[in-house]
């Protein structure tokens, strides 16, 4: 079987979601921004439902709601009506317009439509037009991760401006992580005395408090004024090195000469060290004591627990950046990844994993463009003690009779997905504790003695 994609023509139980979903998630991380899908009503409704099942928060996504007429004659009229309606009812500070397979295939020129819409509305004193951000996200091209990357690039491309370099300003481009991760990243950067422009930042909007009054668009998100300043930052740190195509960091480097630092997602001590080193570099300060202490406690816990986990075998799956960093993290704690895969097809997954320092572990088998049936078949050839990935792996974990440690998205069969912390020393600590405890629990459960002391 080839390790590029599947042996089957059909995709069976996909290990990915569609491009517009990623775009909607990214747009939800901009202050006052309403995601808007140019296509069928179903796309927005399905994506809303799917993201609500993970985040358990309101997730309003507008739709231009194509009918047969618009599919034949083009969707300009629907887009224009839809935009007028969302401006009236939601009063957004920005609208993030992502295309779907439908509007892309009929060849709608959305950029032109948006220009005409702006011109049309220019004479209307009652309506002020907020930034309209357009991401091209045909769902036959790439996965949700590519849609996310493209939308973040579009946000920065549309809003960022140049200007005098701000030594304390740093762009953080986090990849698809949890609200808890986003909060932690902001905290880390701020502790270095730096001002982060974290784009996107859905940490409040998708993990916020209950309300006194209904909010048209929930509070939170990267302030638009801050994104405008992106071009003046001292540097951009992109967390995750698998994206191909245009990226926000690349755009900022090209347009405004902001140095781009492309790092792995900071899961594990070594990957986190890279991020902390970058921040030391930019700020000229050492890692603040509280974070150095967290690192120390993390390494200490690695030592305390190493015999519980050494030599265990794992199957890892999910978004490519998550997979790469998780495999690296497992290698540094003595768990061998025997099989890993992603539904993504950037083509860089294998190369990124090949660069990982494996220590005593053998390199894993890597399958790009995998689906869960491919993974199930490949799992026949290996021994595994646990799986690490999102909820959709449960069927296989159950079949193999091994535990699943849930990370990433979607986590819709457990509670608290938004508060799962994965990144930095603190996130790694939580993930490490969860993995160790999962293995201890399993050991206890299968023990005839039922030890209370392990």
């Amino acid at each position: 079987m080839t390790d590029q994609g599947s042996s089957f023509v059909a995709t069976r139980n996909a290990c990915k979601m569609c491009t517009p979903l990623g775009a909607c998630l990214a747009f939800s991380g901009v202050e006052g921004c309403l995601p808007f899908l140019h296509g069928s009503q179903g796309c927005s409704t399905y994506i809303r439902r799917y993201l609500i099942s993970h985040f358990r928060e309101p997730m309003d996504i507008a739709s231009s709601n194509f009918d047969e007429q618009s599919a034949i004659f083009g969707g300009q009229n629907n887009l224009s009506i839809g935009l007028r309606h969302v401006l009236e009812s939601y009063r957004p500070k920005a609208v993030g317009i992502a295309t779907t397979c439908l509007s892309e295939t009929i060849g709608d020129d959305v950029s032109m439509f948006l220009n005409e819409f702006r011109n049309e509305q220019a004479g209307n004193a009652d309506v002020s037009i907020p930034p309209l951000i357009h991401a091209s996200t045909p769902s036959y091209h790439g996965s949700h991760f590519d849609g996310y990357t493209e939308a973040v690039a579009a946000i920065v491309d549309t809003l960022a401006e140049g200007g005098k370099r701000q030594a304390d300003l740093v762009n953080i481009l986090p990849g698809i992580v949890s609200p808890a991760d986003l909060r932690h990243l902001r905290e880390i950067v701020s502790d270095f005395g730096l001002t982060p422009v974290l784009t996107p930042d859905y940490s409040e909007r998708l993990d916020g408090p209950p309300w006194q009054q209904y909010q048209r668009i929930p509070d939170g998100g990267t302030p638009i004024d801050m994104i405008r300043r992106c071009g003046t930052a001292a540097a951009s740190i992109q967390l995750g090195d698998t994206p191909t195509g245009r990226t926000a960091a690349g755009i900022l480097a090209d347009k405004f000469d902001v140095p781009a630092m492309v790092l792995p997602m900071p899961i594990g001590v070594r990957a986190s060290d890279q991020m902390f080193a970058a921040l030391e570099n930019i700020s000229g300060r050492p890692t603040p004591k509280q974070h150095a202490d967290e690192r120390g406690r993390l390494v200490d816990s690695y030592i305390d627990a190493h015999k519980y986990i050494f030599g265990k075998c794992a199957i890892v799956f999910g978004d490519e950046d998550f997979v790469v960093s998780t495999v690296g993290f497992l290698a540094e704690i003595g768990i061998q990844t025997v099989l890993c895969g992603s539904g993504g097809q950037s083509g860089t997954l294998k190369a990124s994993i090949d660069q990982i320092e494996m220590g005593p572990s053998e390199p894993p088998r890597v399958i790009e463009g995998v689906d869960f049936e491919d993974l199930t078949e490949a799992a026949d050839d290996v021994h595994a003690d646990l799986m690490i990935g999102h909820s959709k792996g449960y069927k296989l974990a159950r079949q193999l009779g091994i535990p699943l440690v849930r990370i990433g998205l979607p986590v819709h069969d457990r509670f608290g997905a938004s508060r799962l912390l994965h990144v930095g020393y603190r996130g790694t600590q939580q993930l490490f504790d969860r993995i160790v405890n999962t293995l201890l629990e399993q050991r206890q459960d299968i023990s005839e003695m039922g030890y209370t002391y392990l």
Partner: protein
Amino acid sequence: MREAIDILDARRRQVHTKGSQPFQLDCEKHSVAGSVSQRACVFCGSRVVLYPITDALHLVHGPIGCAAYTWDIRGAQSSGSQLHRMSFSTDLREKDVIYGGEKKCEAALIELIGRYRPKAAFVYATCIVGLIGDDLEAVCRRVTAQTGVETIPVHSEGFAGSKKDGYTAACAALDRLVGTSESPPPDGPSINILGDFNIAGETWIIRDYYERMGVNVISTITGDGRVDDIRRAHQAQLNVVQCSGSMKGLARLMKQKYDIPFVHVSYFGLEDVSKALYDVAEQFNDPAMMQRTTQLVRDEISAVMPQLRRYRDALQGKKAAVYTGGAFKAFSLVRSLRTLGVQTVIAGSQTGNPQDYQQLESLCDDGTVLLDDTNPLELAKFIDQTGADLLIGGVKERPIAYKLGVAFCDHNHERKRCLAGYEGMVNFANEVYSSVCSPVWSLSPRKRHAPPVKRSIGPGPLVTADAGLPLNTKAPQCPTAATVPSAGSDSHACGVCQLKAHCSGLAAQETETA
């Protein structure tokens, strides 16, 4: 409200407050662009109807999203094959869009049929298939010929109408299967159960009622559905159709082709499930069956009323908002809530038709807000305005309620708890109680100043009968407990739930017979 939420001009005629002016509600319209409708698409309509056919292969022909978001998310159970829970997609890529997806679709079908040996295969056309012009009929014909497994296209291009059109496409696909098997029909009265999707085993509960009445169930379409049963569904003497619109199309086709009459029923709430059973018994005109039905209804109601009464004591006077996919479920919910002492202050649906809304309006009290194809902002506005304590809907509606400190009950297909039939009514009461009477609301900002809820049904299991209840099973006055309600019985009070006019609207339900 920070600022009052206005209703878009284009939607004003889809909102009506009962009693404010003569009733009129626009409906069956394409959703307003930019309104953030809670509706899905044609594909969704077809997918929900056909999904529970457990031994068929379901291939979604299109890019990955449509298959990914419908993978194993529904609570439809199977007594055998689990094939329906697999998500198969042609996962179209750019080159397929340029050069056409027929070859990929055909290759995928042949390979999947070879691997999974389904009894039949459904191929769903998504938006893009309609655009690139793949000839799915031809593909399916070739695959059927090559594999011997009937392969049926479902014309469910997302943009080509609404969810309702997806129901029609699904019924057209099912119609190709019905009547293709000639095994000998069973002796005695027989029915097909249409429009129940076996969420949390509901079809099994309903089927058991009919079998206890002495009725044979030939097929269940589509809850726990089997291709071979559907093939011989034309042998039934009666189609019993639940749900607003999803399966009525098939019932109509079977009436035309095979002269099988149908009745329209609901299994939610004591009144509606009882009426369903009586209506079916009446169709067979058999006094012994009617006697068994009466006994069944009496036994079941006696078993659950004591528990329901305790829930009602806790819930009396609360106010609910109801927003469902089809309007028929909304009727049942308004009545079920009344049984629990809860008043409906907002009622609406995604796909109701004029007759549905007429009936819904007549069921509701003055001041109730009626909504067609609404959206989060309108729901929030009216929840705030009416002071609703509870929202009943699906996952998409849930955060609206929770953010406002309002209880929620999931009555959609993703739920994993049975809410149909008599025991389902107890579960429903428990669902509502568990949310409305939770202590957490007193910490929610919007409810902070409200006194903490002190309504408890008290300790003790909820399965034992409470001897003190005034339920009179020997001399029931309630049509749900002993007699079949007749047209015009709207105005009498119910002996079981002691609510006036609880039967209103029942007579208006469509009963089409031969």
